């Protein structure tokens, strides 16, 4: 099995206005999704990200970055194991946030060097 990074993108402008409680109000259904991935041994780890952050380029360090304004900013990530990218995509498709149209998920195979 290969590892995949699921990059969860949401409208940060909206969730930036939420309190933690509001933001995590949909946690129980997300929890169910993660549990179902873990049950079959496909879940590795994951975390929601805070909306604030720093943005670094060669010439400047923007303390706020473009995050707060971003329509499709990274709001969290999960690492899962899957048989192939189709299966990884199928896991991502079942994410409650995606089903509700609140988030999109980018599915990226993680590079691994073979011996």
């Amino acid at each position, binding site marked *: 099995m290969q590892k995949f990074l699921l990059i969860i993108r949401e409208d940060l402008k909206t969730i930036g206005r939420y309190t933690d409680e509001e933001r*995590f109000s949909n946690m129980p259904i997300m*929890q169910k999704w993660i549990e179902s991935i*873990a049950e079959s*041994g496909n*879940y590795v780890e994951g*975390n*929601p990200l805070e909306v604030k952050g720093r943005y670094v380029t060669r010439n400047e360090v923007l303390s706020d970055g473009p995050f707060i304004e971003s329509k499709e900013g990274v709001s969290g990530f999960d690492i899962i194991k899957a*048989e192939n990218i189709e299966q990884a995509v*199928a896991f991502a498709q079942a994410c409650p946030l995606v089903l509700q149209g609140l988030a999109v998920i980018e599915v990226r195979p993680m590079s691994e060097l073979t011996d």
Partner: protein
Amino acid sequence: MSPARAEVDKLYKEHFGKMVASLLYSSRDIDLETAEDIVQDSFSAALTDWQKNGLPFHPTGWLYKVCKNKALNKIRNHKRTQGLRDDLNLQDVEVKFAETAFDDQQLKLLFACAHPDLTPKTQVVITLKYVANLKVEAIARILAMTIDGVDKILLRARQKIKDEKILLEEPVLAALKPRLGIVHKILYLIFNEGYKSSWGKEILREELCEDALFMTKGLINSGLATKETNALYALMLFNAARFKARFGASGELLDLEKQDRSLWNTELILLATDFLVGARSNLLSSYHLEASIAFVHCTAKSFNTTDWKTIRQLYEQLLRNNPNPFVELNYAIALYYAGEKERAFAMLHELHRHPFFNQYCSLNVTLGKFYLLEGNAQKAKTFLERASTQTSFEKEKDLIRRLVSDAEAQVRSSNGKQV
């Protein structure tokens, strides 16, 4: 239930998937949906006919014959509408009456369901449908899904099954082997679904465990099995041996500590031990480790004399095999009972800081229980009350309520002492 209805239900359970597969196998002109319609039709025809005329001498044969004729008609009509020459070789649709326990047809179906592009949940749904022959309504009930949800999954999965070469051709051993891991996972998940206490004591769920055991045994007998299959089978048997003790006199859920161990099925435990010994291998899979943990529990005389040090080591290995927060929770529990309480609490609190696991009912129950055992009833109550809002299952809520009242009693008695 009328004898006709009972017979139809029984045959459906044994033959639905096989009949669908037979049709697919016998003619390339039939697609999966059509095959299912034809088989469904045959069962309705059987029910009507048998209720009116009584059971035929050979119900299975009757059913297959009707099914075959319906398929032939369908193909003829189809060819006609397509304007093709009707050169259908009738022998093509000859179906064998397969009445053995778990036959090649079912085995092939099992491997077809293990399509690597599908999520484990989808694999489970289609295995229940085509190999275990459960109806959509039953699958929905078992997996706590809506009928519509199950239908949607089936709709998407049908295309994949349709593309499957192994359903249409004789399976080559080499083609099946790479899928064995997925097949194991499906069987494991089906057993788990049946075992999970959440939905309470339901006959249907024990049947699901039996289905998983039956299919796993079929796999072992097929010659395709590996040591891992044996370990998986042992794991299932150890858990099945404890079935009767998991609920109390009034149907309430009992945790391991309170179970009456004399109700455990010693014959099943011995059988499981045999399979675990037979599974011995240099490569330890997660099934080996989980079965070994179950072995230690099953052979302990009491909760207090359980060899928690060994269990703790096994969980440590399992965590290395399969690192994830859910295994961590179990590891922390083993640490606590093995006497490493500080490390256990540290791990549990670490998990608790995570926005996801904070919401996890079992984590809060565990913290509540451990604080109760440590005599910190106030803290225990906080975690338990939080946990009770995190499950929708009555039996679990009930178990938590009992723990909360334990905590309240402890608070009262310590207050009493102070006075």
